[in-house]
């Protein structure tokens, strides 16, 4: 497609989205505020329903909780209004609704687990207050990201730094000794500091995406150079396979060292999409899928934990009381919920192990039914599509690539986890963005949204006058390559 330097394709889009330089396009911030209030209202109603069904007692406190949720959202809204006034007005409300629903569901699962644990004398501590704290921290980080990062293109400058940090963060828990990186539920993806633990992989996801986007933009033409043509596909030259092989190696090592199949799949999928978008070559995708399949088959042959996941997917009833227990309970919950669900607070989330993290969408499916689960999936779809829209209309290639990658990451992550929970694909432990319990996931995904908002702000904002971009050494590199191209 067009050259990144001249912005050949960016220009008409810019003209379409913003009128003459003197006239400012509408910011749509009020739309966002109304949608946020709507989301806060829905979340409050959900909380009321949970408490009505569970505690059988309704207190005025719920209204205060709802109002404070709205208050926190308003702060985020003001940050957007201040630092990204032209950002997409739908993205933040989608996130708010998912985050709020997640908090309500975690609270609801707390009630169920306390019901089970307390009469038996087992200790139980509520997860919801901690998650509320994480939400507050995440929103602070969200606001800070918007303030600090006034132009997403700045990120491209630090591409390699981010890449290095991301790689370290990704590999760290896998190679560190287990007193600091304990193996929890079979996966070695946490770093524990006393009572407090983080999943560096969640942040690595974003860091590496920034790196790949920057790297691919600067070296784009290397990858578009065709190698041999086989079966209608333009295969790349063998020496250009380097990055793909590196990504593949990283993906497989996550699978082996950390036993984290979900992250491995997610990471590899994102890299493939970035490659495809950057080069417009389906060959990369085909090649990548083949490589991943080979890696997966080998891993399945060699490693027990992969084999069990596949076995549970093929026939969970085979070991229904042990290995297949979790996925079966998830399916039973979904089936019992049926079309309209058991009602918020009416289900049995205590039956599903890990209900408030990986399997939170199963609890939503049980209590809100197929209708509720579909609604949640559609919110994610809207979120991802809005992100993609920002990527489509932003004018710089780095923004396009990063925006597309971030949007795809959201959709692909939800596909992996909901697909696993509903037995569409083998279950791989991964969080549902914004819904699942877990601070790292929440922080990372709020940063992801801040980036998307920043890109959409650039896309919709009145900065249409094509300015020289002196701060883009990566693109400047390409200039020489481009000159040779039209031979």
């Amino acid at each position, binding site marked *: 497609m067009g050259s990144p330097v001249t912005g050949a394709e960016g220009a008409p889009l810019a003209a379409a989205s913003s009128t003459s330089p003197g006239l400012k396009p509408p910011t749509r911030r009020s739309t966002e505020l109304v949608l946020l209030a709507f989301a806060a209202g829905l979340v409050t109603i959900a909380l009321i329903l949970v408490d009505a069904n569970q505690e*059988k007692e309704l207190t005025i406190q719920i209204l205060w909780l709802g109002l404070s949720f709205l208050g926190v959202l308003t702060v985020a809204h003001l940050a957007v209004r201040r630092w990204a006034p032209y950002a997409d007005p739908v993205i933040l409300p989608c996130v708010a609704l998912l985050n709020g629903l997640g908090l309500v569901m975690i609270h609801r699962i707390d009630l169920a687990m306390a019901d089970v644990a307390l009469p038996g004398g087992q200790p139980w501590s509520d997860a919801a207050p901690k998650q509320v704290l994480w939400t507050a921290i995440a929103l602070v980080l969200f606001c800070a990201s918007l303030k600090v990062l006034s132009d997403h293109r700045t990120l491209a400058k630090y591409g390699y730094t981010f890449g290095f940090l991301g790689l370290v963060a990704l590999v760290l828990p896998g190679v560190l000794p287990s007193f600091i990186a304990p193996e929890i539920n079979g996966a070695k993806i946490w770093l524990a500091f006393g009572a407090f633990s983080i999943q560096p992989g969640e942040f690595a996801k974003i860091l590496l995406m920034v790196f790949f986007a920057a790297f691919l933009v600067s070296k784009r033409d290397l990858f578009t150079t065709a190698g041999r043509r086989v079966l209608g596909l333009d295969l790349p030259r063998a020496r250009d396979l380097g990055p793909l092989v590196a990504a593949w190696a990283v993906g497989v090592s996550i699978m082996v060292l950390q036993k984290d199949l979900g992250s491995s799949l997610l990471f590899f999928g994102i890299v493939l999409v970035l490659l495809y978008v*950057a080069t417009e070559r389906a060959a990369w995708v085909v090649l990548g899928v083949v490589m991943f399949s080979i890696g997966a088959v080998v891993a399945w042959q060699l490693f027990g934990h992969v084999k069990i996941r596949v076995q549970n997917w093929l026939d969970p009833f085979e070991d229904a009381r042990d290995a297949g227990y979790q996925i079966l309970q998830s399916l*039973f*919950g*979904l089936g019992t919920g049926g*079309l309209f669900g058991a009602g918020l607070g009416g289900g049995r989330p205590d039956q599903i192990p890990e209900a408030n993290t990986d399997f939170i969408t199963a609890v939503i499916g049980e209590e809100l039914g*197929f209708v509720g689960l*579909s609604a949640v999936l559609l919110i994610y779809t809207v979120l991802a599509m809005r992100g993609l829209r920002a990527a489509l209309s932003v004018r710089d290639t780095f923004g396009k690539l990063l925006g597309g990658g971030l949007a795809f990451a959201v959709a692909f992550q939800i*596909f992996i986890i909901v697909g696993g929970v509903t037995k569409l694909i083998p279950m791989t432990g991964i969080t549902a963005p914004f819904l699942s319990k877990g601070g790292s996931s929440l922080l990372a995904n709020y940063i992801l949204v801040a980036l998307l908002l920043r890109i959409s702000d650039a896309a919709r904002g009145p900065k249409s006058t094509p300015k020289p971009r002196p701060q883009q050494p990566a693109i400047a590199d390409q200039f020489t390559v481009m000159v040779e191209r039209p031979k």
Partner: protein
Amino acid sequence: MNKPLRRVGLAMMAMMVLLLANATYVQVIKSDDYRTNPLNRRVVLDQFSRERGQIIAAGGETIATVEKTTDRLRYLRKYAGPAYAPVTGYFSTVFGASGLERAEDDLLSGSDDRLFSRRVSDLIKGRDPKGGSLQLTVDYALQQAAYDSLQGVTGSVVALRPQTGEILAMASTPSYDPNVLASHDVDEQREAWKGLIAEDANLPMLNRSVAGLYAPGSTFKLVVAAAALAEGKTKESEVDGRPVITLPGTQTTLPNFNDTNCGNGVTATLQEALAKSCNTAFAVLADQLGKDKLNRQAAKFGFDDADLEIPLGVETSTLGPMPDRPAIFQTGIGQRDALVTPLENAVVAATIANDGVRMRPHLVQKVLAPDLQVISEDKGDDVAEAMQPEHARALRDMMVESEKNTFQGGRLSGVSIASKTGTAERGEDVKSTKPNAWYVAFAPAEKPEIAIAVIVENGGDAGLAATGGKVAAPIGRAVIGAYLGSR
């Protein structure tokens, strides 16, 4: 770069469509499979974690209640014991429910519509939802006495209040202890169940009072007599008195008991024929009345009522098809294809006692809210006028004569009983198969307070020599004595 981005968007949509399609499969198409899968404990947990209502006897004595526990099912069902098992049934986490536990499950579990306003107020006032309670017509002491009087034999006793249809007692032996089936220890339940369904256990969970169908034998002569009285016969009318007759068109003979004469050996009065239980007289009478009149009279007494619920379901008593004249002869003495439940035979006695007016038999006197406020009360209703009052009184006099002609074991002094015995032959080879012994009666004859039916299977302890008079009558008199003596 927008073309591949749009394709990525399409891929994202495709993933969502896949997820939605799969969720439809799990939550809509396979919903019932998953909900009813025996490994899915949700439905059971739901029922058991609520405080189930009580079942109490007419005098307020508890026969089923709950006890708080510390395990996750929260309440343990407690029963008064085997004597009351045919009434209450069991409520098991593994084997479902029977008896009133099943028939009135909605009310006892609290989901019945009659408790709706109560549920709403529970929600507002913050109370745990509770089930409603049942106050039965069953007399606590009489039920125990009936059960005790059946010890050592297989059979059933049903006692009714003739004026209302209240079921005062409904005993069945052998019985079982429903407490073990309500145990929260699944293994204990299974162990107990295995013992109960064992072949030599003799069907302890069969509620013979409503689910046992037996040939009525000579007790059916009451119905034939009622039809004859309705056709203008009186107790002085002359009927056939021969010791043996040959069934029309066959070589089959139909003798009186021990081939004795009835009356003078040629004719006898209807009263004498009933008192001495002459087979030939009633076989010929049945033939003279014909199939239709017999069926009509039987239906007026409650035969052929397939919809009867007390609220337990009741097996349908019937005369059978009566395809030819010999069949009508045989049906006239309660053999061939005629089958009744002990409850139905008690209804026949109660109807005669109540001047020919049949009352609907029922077990539940009052439906109570969880706070024991009366939601509804069953005062009994007359469902049919089976006989003219004067005919009923004539039949009563004949039954008083019959009682005088019966073996006097366990006779009560100072109480006049109206009764009819039956010795129902079973099987092909009647001479070597032990008969079932019947006794139906009401007392006091002039002002009836209780009507009963007693069946003892396989002749009880008397074996082949058993007759209704020898085996069943003493049990019946003991039950009548227990009831009248307690007042």
